[in-house]
């Protein structure tokens, strides 16, 4: 972050705003916020378009296709909102710019490769756990789901170990 940008909010203030958003979501919808589900809907529909027979033979994928059009899925629309909200949040403090965040000791190519492999790993893991840091750790944490808290603790364990192995990427 360079000097022209305004600093981030206090993490506690942002957290309270986020918590109130989550509370409103539970009041309006009866369920919480999510993220990985949107990618699953999109991936299922991509497979449905490219290889319909294969998609229909997989009951997990077929279930997502039976839910209907991608743009009629709540979590897909919510994630579109997240992109818009993130853009708006970065806009007025002057944080909008093209840049790739990385440590000083890693090249662009390797950083992007790590991002791709890391993203694929997160996507895979979110299906194993049936949720991600939004749908499971945050939303499940707030309604005291035991599995969500197990997930959160394991998430930190996996993060600490891997971050040490790839420390040249960040520090």
């Amino acid at each position, binding site marked *: 972050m360079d000097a022209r940008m305004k600093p*981030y*909010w206090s*993490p*506690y203030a*942002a*957290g*309270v*705003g986020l*918590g*109130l*958003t989550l*509370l*409103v*979501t*539970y*009041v*309006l*919808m*009866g369920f*919480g916020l999510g993220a990985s589900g949107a990618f699953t809907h999109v991936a299922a529909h991509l497979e449905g378009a490219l290889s319909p027979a294969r998609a229909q033979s997989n009951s997990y994928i077929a279930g997502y296709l039976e839910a209907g059009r991608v743009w009629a899925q709540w979590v897909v*629309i*919510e994630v579109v*909102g*997240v992109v*818009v*909200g*993130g*853009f*708006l*949040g*970065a806009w007025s403090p002057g944080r909008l710019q093209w840049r790739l965040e990385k440590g000083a000791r890693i090249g662009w190519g390797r950083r992007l490769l*790590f*991002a791709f492999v*890391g993203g694929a*790993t*997160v996507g*895979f*893991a979110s299906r*194993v*756990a*049936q949720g991600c*840091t939004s749908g499971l750790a*945050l*939303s499940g944490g*707030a309604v005291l*789901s*035991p*599995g*969500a808290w*197990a997930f959160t603790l*394991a998430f930190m*364990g*996996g*993060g600490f*170990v*891997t*971050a*040490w192995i790839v420390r040249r*990427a*960040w520090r």
Partner: protein
Amino acid sequence: MIWPINLEGLPGLLAGLGVGVAFGFFLERGGIGDPKKLVGLFYLEDFTMLKVMFAAIATAAAGIGALSALGLMDLGAVAVQTTYIWPQAVGGLILGAGFALGGY
């Protein structure tokens, strides 16, 4: 008990768009859009992710509890993530690894 409202159809989608915008806005304002801040937790150098997440969880949990105590919210009608302990523990471990590798 009048809540949750359980919106469906177009009103539900519009609500999803609205809470999504707020979600993204507060995440960005808290610094959660910056992978160097996120992985900072794993080097014990930047605890932003922990502070934002736990402040959010505490706020929402306290709010849901208060609304229930006031008789406004039916906890039985709120979707609670089903616990599958091993898939969630193993999935969390793998997700944490991918997160530290990719930065999100």
